[in-house]
């Protein structure tokens, strides 16, 4: 960027420097000259729809929108002449009279850019008659409402949906003053291809798109905005949480147009409001078999006593610990120390530990030189790829932001997408090639692809033994042409990336992962590019701490189990059976769940918003989440509880 020529302009009589290729608006913003805008948004294309950013430029016959006017050396620009201000006010009046902009009923009042501009121009009335059109309101989406009556047709939602999310659900329909935003073939948003990520909602300058969970709960000025990271999946999106009266009002992406700020429905909406019943005091199972509230001292005494008993009677290895990788690294570290050093057991695991063992075994089968997770690529490499192969995953369900990276690459750069999944996968319908091999035959398919790709690219790399096309067709039940087409697509690509997810991680098949890595190596000359979508926010952090290292973990049968469940949701996996077999079960959890219902002692645990800590994203980047809410008095920090327990033993 630095090789762009420097140019000098005169703005409002002052000399202003900028770079060639900037627009006049960009240059004004960079030099702290305020020009009002509505349809402009950082990171999106400029369309010049609202005409609020108009400026006078010497030599131009008319006034021009600065957001689309390229800056040139020697331009003389005026941004705030009386004529311009008159014009802007007129535009605002027309906007206000065109549809229904009565702020006192609006969810966005106080956070509305249109309202702010009206205040700025002291618009206490409009000189034109109001048209009061009776436009429909779409409320069928679970989290969002589109009220066309509040829409100013700036097109920010349309651009963010197409350019940032890559989904392209929204666009304009009809024309002129009848223009309306439409989703797909004019369906309600809830029945369209919308992924409910809420990017349009955050982009909307008015109250035309608003959130059902945040509406009327408070304005930005009434609360405090805390910058943190989302700890749900391993992408590590940056979030701005609006907190008012110790309640989360709204969660926004910190940088909507950037890579890690667009959020998904889980991060944006589902975290604002949780219907599950919170656990606020320790609970102990009484003689009748019911859980009843108890004091911290009693609960701690019971747990330490039981640990000592089981250790003395059956030995330390009769106790097993399971931790959720939604917890930050500090908590997990304390947990590992407690289990390993204080109790002396080596049976510790995360809920997604079987996936880790498959990955590590797969990598060691593949490379044999002791490399680990570091051979995986950063998430951003999807954006530079020219072909993306998704194996055993629907990223739009498990990691929607990663899914939208792929969609963005597909819609903007025409990147080819191949989906391989034996399960029904809706992401397949958005791809170029959707291969659905029979269950358990993915490895055969990959082996055949390897053979075809190696033949096409004339690769001399050492690799695993290929599988013949005929055999793969027989095993997978797929069409021969489809496999060949996918192989051709892969070998045509110069920089293909393979993304795999829960389907592969839960298959417990290290050979499949080794095959994947092998295929990635053959297909990409610059070195393999593979990304695994790990299921939890701190999965990688937990794995790096050695929480899931044990081979044969699946075979152990603990007598006593300590589960650091935190605010995780109940999952399936080997660990569920193991916990079910334990005689004595301690659960440290935030919400009532199936697990706490069968536990003998339950300790309350803070939720994500009530703790701070380190999170390692799925591609190994370290982020820090902040404490957003104050927990209620009965809830203690996980680290504090574990250290106290350790002291008791």
């Amino acid at each position, binding site marked *: 960027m630095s090789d762009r020529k420097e140019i000098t302009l005169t703005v409002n009589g002052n000399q202003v420097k900028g770079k060639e290729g900037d627009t006049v608006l960009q240059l004004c913003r960079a030099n702290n000259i305020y020009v009002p805008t509505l349809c402009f948004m950082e990171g999106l294309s400029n369309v010049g729809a609202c005409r609020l950013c108009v400026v006078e430029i010497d030599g131009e016959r008319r006034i021009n929108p600065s957001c689309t006017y390229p800056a040139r050396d020697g331009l003389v620009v005026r941004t705030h002449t009386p004529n311009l201000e008159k014009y802007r006010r007129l535009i605002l009046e027309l906007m206000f009279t065109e549809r229904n902009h009565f702020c006192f009923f609006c969810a966005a009042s106080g956070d509305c850019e249109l309202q702010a501009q009206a205040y700025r121009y002291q618009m206490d009335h409009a000189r034109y008659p109001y*048209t009061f*059109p*009776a*436009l*429909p309101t779409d409320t069928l989406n679970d989290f969002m409402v589109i009220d066309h009556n509040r829409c100013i047709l700036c097109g920010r939602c349309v651009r963010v949906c*197409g350019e940032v999310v890559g989904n*392209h*659900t*929204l*666009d*304009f*329909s*009809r*024309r002129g*003053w*009848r223009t*309306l935003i*439409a*989703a*797909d*073939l*004019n369906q309600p948003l809830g029945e369209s*291809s919308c992924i409910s990520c809420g990017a349009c909602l955050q982009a909307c300058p008015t109250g035309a798109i608003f959130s059902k969970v945040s509406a009327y709960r408070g304005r930005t000025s009434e609360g405090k905005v805390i910058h943190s990271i989302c700890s749900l999946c391993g992408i590590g999106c940056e979030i701005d949480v609006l907190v008012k009266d110790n309640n989360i009002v709204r969660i926004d992406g910190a940088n909507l147009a950037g890579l890690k700020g667009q959020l998904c429905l889980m991060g944006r909406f589902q975290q604002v409001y949780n219907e599950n019943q919170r656990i606020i005091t320790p609970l102990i199972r009484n003689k009748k078999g019911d859980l009843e509230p108890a004091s911290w001292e009693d609960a701690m005494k019971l747990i330490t006593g039981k640990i000592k008993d089981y250790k003395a009677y059956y030995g330390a290895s009769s106790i097993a610990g399971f931790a959720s990788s939604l917890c930050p690294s500090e908590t997990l570290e304390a947990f590992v120390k407690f289990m390993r050093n204080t109790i002396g057991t080596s049976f510790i695991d995360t809920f997604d530990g079987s996936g880790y063992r498959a990955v590590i075994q797969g990598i060691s089968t593949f490379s044999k030189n002791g490399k680990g997770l570091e051979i995986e690529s950063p998430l951003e490499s999807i954006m530079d790829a020219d072909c993306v192969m998704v194996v055993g995953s629907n990223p739009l369900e498990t990691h929607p932001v990663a899914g939208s990276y792929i969609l963005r690459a597909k*819609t903007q750069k025409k990147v080819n997408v191949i989906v391989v999944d034996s399960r029904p996968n809706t992401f397949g319908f958005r791809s170029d090639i959707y291969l659905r091999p029979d269950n358990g035959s993915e490895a055969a398919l990959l082996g055949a692809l390897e053979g075809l790709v190696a033949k096409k690219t004339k690769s001399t790399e050492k690799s695993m033994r290929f599988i013949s096309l005929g055999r793969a067709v027989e095993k997978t039940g797929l069409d021969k042409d489809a496999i060949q087409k996918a192989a051709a697509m892969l070998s045509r690509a110069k920089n293909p990336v393979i993304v795999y997810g829960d389907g592969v991680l839960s298959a417990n098949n290290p050979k499949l992962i080794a095959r994947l890595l092998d295929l990635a190596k053959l297909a990409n000359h610059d070195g393999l590019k593979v990304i695994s979508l790990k299921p939890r926010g701190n999965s990688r952090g937990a794995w790096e701490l050695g929480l899931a290292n044990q081979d044969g973990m699946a075979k152990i049968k603990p007598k006593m189990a300590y589960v650091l469940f935190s605010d995780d949701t109940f999952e399936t996996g080997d660990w569920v059976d193991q916990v079910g077999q334990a005689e004595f079960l301690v659960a440290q959890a935030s919400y009532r769940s199936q697990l706490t219902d069968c536990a003998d002692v339950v300790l309350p645990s803070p939720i994500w918003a009530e703790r701070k800590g380190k999170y390692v994203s799925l591609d190994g980047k370290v982020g820090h989440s902040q404490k957003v809410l104050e927990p209620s008095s009965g809830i203690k920090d996980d680290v504090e509880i574990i250290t106290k327990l350790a002291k008791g033993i």
Partner: protein
Amino acid sequence: MPDTSTEPPVSNAKIVNTPEEQEDNRRRTRKVLKKFNRKRENLVPVLQQVQDELGYLPREAMLEVAEYLKVPEVDVYGVVTFYNQFRLKPPGKHSIRVCLGTACHMKGGYILLDAWKRRLGVDRGETTADREYDLDTVACVGCCAMAPVNVIDKKAEGRVSPTRVDGILLAFKMEKEKKAKEKPD
């Protein structure tokens, strides 16, 4: 007041294609699509030819077009609603066009439009559920001396009064009954 409602073309008279009709529409759309390659710039010609084939652009046809050209569905819908030449509702057996040009407007063309809306129970741009009539407006047909003008099945009717609407409908009805008598099924 002239009719300036911004209501989207959503009708109470819902015309729902049966699964067989839908399948037929899809098949005929695919037949048209075969003549084109999968380029985005073919969108308008494709839609024109599909409309020539089907008479209008049903939902299933737009879905086929979007998938074939690999454009988002909403882009197809946006283009279809942008241009007046595309219809979203099937044409009726008889077309009724109410002129709202300057002269017809002054002579009460919008009163006629209201009369048609009431009689047929549909809004402008829509078709009655029995697919007998479709109602729309035009802006001047070039015979302003006859204002207000209605164009009924390509025939211009001049100096139409609201009661004439009933007469026209009655004529169509009688014609239909006569035909039914001549050719009893």
